[in-house]
């Protein structure tokens, strides 16, 4: 029995999220990961933007900052540069991070600044009324795509990898223990660490696209997840519509705040 209450602001409960929303499952995995790492509450600074997932910091008893739409990574970058001793966690969504904050996203990854980003991918703008997001799949309906989206999508993990992130993993709420382990690894990793988390939105996405109950949406993850090692043996056609999970990137690359410190030290000596 894990005691979640020690990390929560219980007076804010119950959670604002809809019935069957996956975000609460992610929050629990995150708290277990924090506990596993033995992090003190004051050691953590959690930053979020705008959206359903970005309401998460309101429920945890860490240093928390709820910022403007798409700008979580900019605030987090500032915090990390000024207070490198803090563990900075960024909570964001597919719309927040890759649409309105897309530029910040690629540049935070490029700088490889030591942040841990938990990106909740629900394929929609849930809170604002179900508009199309950069990850709404072709043919899927949204309030701004009543006949189905005709656009290509972003591969969020691929984007971070291409931009230079040192750790990228993908998981979903069907597998909360795997998720917990990836969050542990992401926090431990020095550099920009992304965990892309598939968190179903039964209200704004599932209902409109007839994806069934929250249980059906989570069961879909179970049936369609392909571990990254196995995905390498499959053809692109076989991988169509599948969810590739696992650690996609885990490399060593120079980290932004450490490089900045080197500069400070060099100038102090001269």
């Amino acid at each position, binding site marked *: 029995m894990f005691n*979640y209450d020690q990390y929560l602001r219980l007076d804010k409960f119950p*959670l604002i*999220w809809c019935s069957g929303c996956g975000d609460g499952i992610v929050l629990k995995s995150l708290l277990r990961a924090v506990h596993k790492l033995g992090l003190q509450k004051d050691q953590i600074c959690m930053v979020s933007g705008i959206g359903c997932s970005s309401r998460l910091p309101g429920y945890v008893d860490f240093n928390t900052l709820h910022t403007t739409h798409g700008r979580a990574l900019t605030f987090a970058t500032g915090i990390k540069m000024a207070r490198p001793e803090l563990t900075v966690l960024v909570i964001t969504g597919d719309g927040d991070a890759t649409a309105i904050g897309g530029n910040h996203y690629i540049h935070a990854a490029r700088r490889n600044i030591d942040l841990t980003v938990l990106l909740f991918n629900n394929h929609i703008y849930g809170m604002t009324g179900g508009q199309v997001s950069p990850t709404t799949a072709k043919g899927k309906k949204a309030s701004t795509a009543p006949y189905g989206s005709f656009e290509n999508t972003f591969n969020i993990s691929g984007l971070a990898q291409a931009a230079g992130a040192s750790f990228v993993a993908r998981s979903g709420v069907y597998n909360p*223990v795997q998720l917990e382990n990836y969050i542990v690894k992401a926090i431990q990793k020095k550099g920009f660490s992304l965990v892309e988390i598939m968190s179903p939105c039964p209200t704004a996405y599932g209902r409109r696209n007839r994806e069934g109950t929250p249980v059906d949406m989570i069961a879909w993850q179970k049936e369609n997840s392909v571990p990254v090692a196995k995905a390498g043996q499959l053809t692109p056609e076989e991988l169509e519509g599948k969810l590739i999970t696992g650690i996609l990137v885990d490399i060593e690359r120079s980290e932004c705040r450490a490089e900045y410190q080197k500069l400070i030290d060099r100038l102090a000596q001269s």
Partner: protein
Amino acid sequence: MSQEPAAKKKKGHVTVREAWCKGCAICVEFCPEQVLVMERGKATVAYPDRCTACNLCELRCPDFCITVSVKGE
């Protein structure tokens, strides 16, 4: 050797914080032993004796309603 079967039959105790339950039924559907049922829109422990303390309901409850403790621990 005699301890092995006893170890396999771990028993759990499930509690539901009903005030926070939104009735998503995730716990009911993912419980391998069918311990829980939906009753008046809330998760309810119907067959407590079947619980093996596997913790799958607690891990997947998005609303912090479910707690599983191992009996005798």
